[in-house]
């Protein structure tokens, strides 16, 4: 059930890609900095957000 136009879809796709890159960058940074386990919660929350954005772009919702 689509509820966004091409512009909204492009925005979601772009946000999803940016969020995926940020997720990877944060994960690498946390590994390099030997951050404590609680910090890694941030990586999975970011990964969740990027998944939602990419699926919304795919579904046009």
């Amino acid at each position, binding site marked *: *059930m689509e509820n966004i136009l091409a512009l909204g879809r492009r925005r979601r796709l772009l946000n999803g890609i940016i969020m995926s890159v940020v997720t990877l960058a944060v994960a690498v940074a946390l590994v390099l900095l030997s951050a404590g386990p609680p910090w890694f919660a941030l990586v999975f929350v970011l990964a969740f957000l990027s998944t939602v954005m990419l699926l919304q772009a795919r579904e046009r919702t």
Partner: protein
Amino acid sequence: MFDALTGPAFGAACALASALSWAITSLLVRQLGNVCSMMTINAVRISLSGLVLLAISLGGTAREELAAMTALTFLLVASSTVLAAGIGDSIFFECARVLGLGRAMTLAMIYPLMAAAFAAAFLGEPITLRSAAGAVTTLAGLGLIVTARSDAGGTHEGQRRAVLLSFVVALTWAASAIIMKPAMRELSPLTAQGVRLPLVAAFLWLMPWSRAGLPRLLAAGRPVVAPLTVLTALTAISSMTWIAGLKYSDVVVATVLSSTSPMFALGLGAMFLGERLSPAAVLGALLTIAGIVVLDI
């Protein structure tokens, strides 16, 4: 740029993402198993992620999708949920207790093959030579990985029954995937899991063994907040990408690729836990990757 989203590779990527997130989920659930029972952690992670997905989906198109949903679709979603999470998973935990996790996983791994046969019979999805070769190669590789990591569990008592029950588990998982496929024509992955996970959670909380571990989990306090946050996010990712894989690709591709979590667990164990890789496990990983390439390209 949208081609990448609409192509079949997107569905395959979703199925693989589901397997990766499931591998990390399994590691974390096992770690938290020291705090309280796995059934309680299972119920908590599914409840929290179900609430998050329901809230996000209601902020989007869920209300319209649910209003437009036919009774048949709701029946398909509900029966798929009861079959997989209610019956299949419960029997699987019992099989894993009797046979050991490795052996139970190996036996249940025939579920993608059953799903492929059901998809051919009921959904008209053709079984091509390539998909059959890819599926068999991937599952053979996973079998090698799982048996190489197999824990020596189980006693002779009840083993034959557990082996037979493992086939029932595979049957329920395969049937669940097949039942969800037509329902996904009407629902987005977000809404579908926003409906399914709260149903699973309600079912799990009805079980006394799920509720039994709750006081110990609450008593654990702040140290479990971060792992539970991670588990909630991972469960949401895993469930959404599993259903997206099923929606955007063939049943055989989605079910086989989403079953590759042992391969990811092998890599994660070697990278972060310093686990040694046996030659059989390495061969299994290579076979699995070869199977994925055959399935996906």
